[in-house]
């Protein structure tokens, strides 16, 4: 019996819809199974894992978002650093962070282990939220409010680096987030709310 052996440069002769060898089938099955594992991990992490980028998403006018950020800043302001307001919202609060070329405002002061709803948006072009040194990254798109439930798991003095090109001053766009350990630091007592 003559078997057609050919390379990819030649036309296959006759009916080429032939069954594959067992070893090839084995690889096809294993490859498919692995792809299903890859797939399953994403829904599984929504159910069992703690890091999911879903958030609350809605459209927002940049001006309206900035107004909301300023109100939030005035409500919970506790000080400033180099002219930039430091804002200490109570746990559970909606917190607002505005990106614009080339700054993040305001400086956020959060408590370790407490959940907040962090709203991100931009006033002008795309920016990138990158929390240093934890390495948490989100896209910040003008016209969209991205509300993420976040729970800091360690105290520290963090930075927000812009990691989406936003213009020639892009590399100077650094913001600040302070996380305090409420069990050791004096309790801020959710000050704003109680008054």
């Amino acid at each position, binding site marked *: 019996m003559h078997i057609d052996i050919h390379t990819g440069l030649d036309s296959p002769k006759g009916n080429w819809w032939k069954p594959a060898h067992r070893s090839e089938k084995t690889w096809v099955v294993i490859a498919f199974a692995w792809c299903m594992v890859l797939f399953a991990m994403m829904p599984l992490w929504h159910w069992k894992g703690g890091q999911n980028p879903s958030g609350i998403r809605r459209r927002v006018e940049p001006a309206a978002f900035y107004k909301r950020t300023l109100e939030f800043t005035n409500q919970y302001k506790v000080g400033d650093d180099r002219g930039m307001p430091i804002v200490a919202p109570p746990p559970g609060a909606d917190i607002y962070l505005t990106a614009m070329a080339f700054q993040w405002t305001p400086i956020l002061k959060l408590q370790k282990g407490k959940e907040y709803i962090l709203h991100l948006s931009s006033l002008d072009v795309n920016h990138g939220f990158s929390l240093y040194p*934890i390495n948490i990254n989100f896209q910040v798109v003008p016209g969209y409010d991205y509300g993420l439930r976040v729970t800091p798991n360690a105290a520290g003095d963090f930075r927000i680096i812009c990691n989406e090109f936003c213009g020639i001053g892009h590399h100077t766009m650094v913001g600040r987030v302070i996380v305090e350990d409420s069990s050791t630091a004096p309790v801020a007592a959710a000050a704003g709310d109680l008054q």
Partner: protein
Amino acid sequence: MSAPIVPASAIGPATGVPAGTRFTVCPFTGRRLDEVALSLTRWNAVTSIVALLVGAIAAVLIVLTRWQAVHLLPAVWFYRILGVHGMSMLIFFIIFFEMAVLHFTSTALLNARNVAPKTSWFAYGLMLLGALMVEYLMWAGKADVLFTSYVPLRAHPLFYLGVILFAVGALIVTGVFFANLAIAKRERTYEGSMPLVVYGAMTAAIIAAITLVHGAMIYIPTFLWSLGLMEVDPQVYRLLWWALGHSSQQINVAAMVAIWYMLGALTVGAVVLNEKISRSAFVLYILFISLASAHHLLVDPGMGSAWKIVNTSYFMYMAVLASLLHGFTVPAGMELGMRLRGYTNGMFDWLRRAPWGDPGFSSLVLSIVVFGFIGGITGVTIGTEQINIIVHNTLRSPGHFHATVVSGTAMAFMGLTYYLIPLVFRKKVALWSLAKLQPYIFAGGMVIFTISMTFAGTFGVPRRHWDISFSQAPFDVAFSPAVDMFLALVALGGVTAATGAFIFIAIAVKSVFFGEALGEVVPLSNMRGVPQGLTHPPKHSADVDERWERMHGPEAGWMGPAPGTLVLVFVFLAAFMLYFFVNWKVLSFVWRIG
């Protein structure tokens, strides 16, 4: 010396060839070659290599700037050159080369002709005009919007128009490609189904057509927006832009795999293990890969989780499956090809005794290995909805795609060029000793470069960033000293790879413009400047049918005709699993986010 021009009527059994179409006969294969198609192939390939030169010079400037100890360029020029690098490499170098591949495969491999020479040349002119417009505006500082040009960052309107002209030209070439296929079929220039390599090129062309339609959907509104005539939503722009931007990388994958099959056949006589599996895998690319672009938007505010999971899982993983299948069938076809030629000892003798001094072969193997092990594994992992949180816009992202596009696609193109120089340009490969080394220099550089970039990215080092010492920022940021080391390695690897690219360009230019004519090729002799696959055409042994039967039969055992490859793919799978789950572990250490 180019073969004499023979009237069409004197060649072979082909029918229906109109008078005046000019053909030559390939001195290696006896195939009929259309001079017009060869000319188009040559011009597109040469233009592509000029773009590669521009992109490679830009690459050196960029890595020497990111290496903080050198920090070569000022900020303005860094971002400008970064835009030039992206457009020159990803668009002009790669797409011009793919146009050459389309012109070549739809004619030479089918004994067919280019059915629309005038249209093809017009399309080439349009692409060239578009490319020159874009290059001029970028260098002139009128388009500092980088490769992605995210709205509402604004470039000069002619920048967008240049991109549109280029895309329209490319779309016309894909149209000509399909016309060539249809006419070849009608004129019966080949028997039965089209060869697998042409099938792969057709896959690339179909994806190209889909991609270019998305390109039109986003660049035409953006052009009008740049003229102040309409609004473009930034999130809709990102969605449609990536339907263009990522799918265009899938054209590259399909073209690269087609070239893998082609180089395997030319260098070691690789056979097609099973047409059904290989062709089905190409169909999976067509069906699913364009839908998988969502993985660029995984941490965007505009879409919900269900949308992200559907687009990046079912759809992307079926495309991943296709790559896993080719990742087996290509090396297995090479292994079996070697075995059918008599290299049957043990598990890996076929690999040891392969023609490692043939730059076409070494490029092929290095392309498969770097694409698979670095590009594939990192790519699938960072394209996961949640893992993307620790990856998005860090250096891990370019670390990944330099392993796929640059190490995979570009290396496949380079390897093919070593065969196109004698086959299409009818010249000897110049600087032959360097040519044998070039794939190793390039791949070695890219391995250091991509791995170092990936590690730097895990520290959160941003991509597209001029100064990670943040000297003018309001708040200090101090990366770990390890980052300095990784960025120095990025520069070292980048400069090494760029050196490999410059050597390649020098070889191509010297061969094509100042090279020695090919002359007569003496089989089984060692000729400087002629790849081994041409002087020692891989011929299967005389009892090939019995061997094939034996290797597929029960005595070959469950590991079948390509046991060595089976071992290699399981090593690959183990590396893949390890990397994937380590990333989940790292992710679980960050803040709770929901």
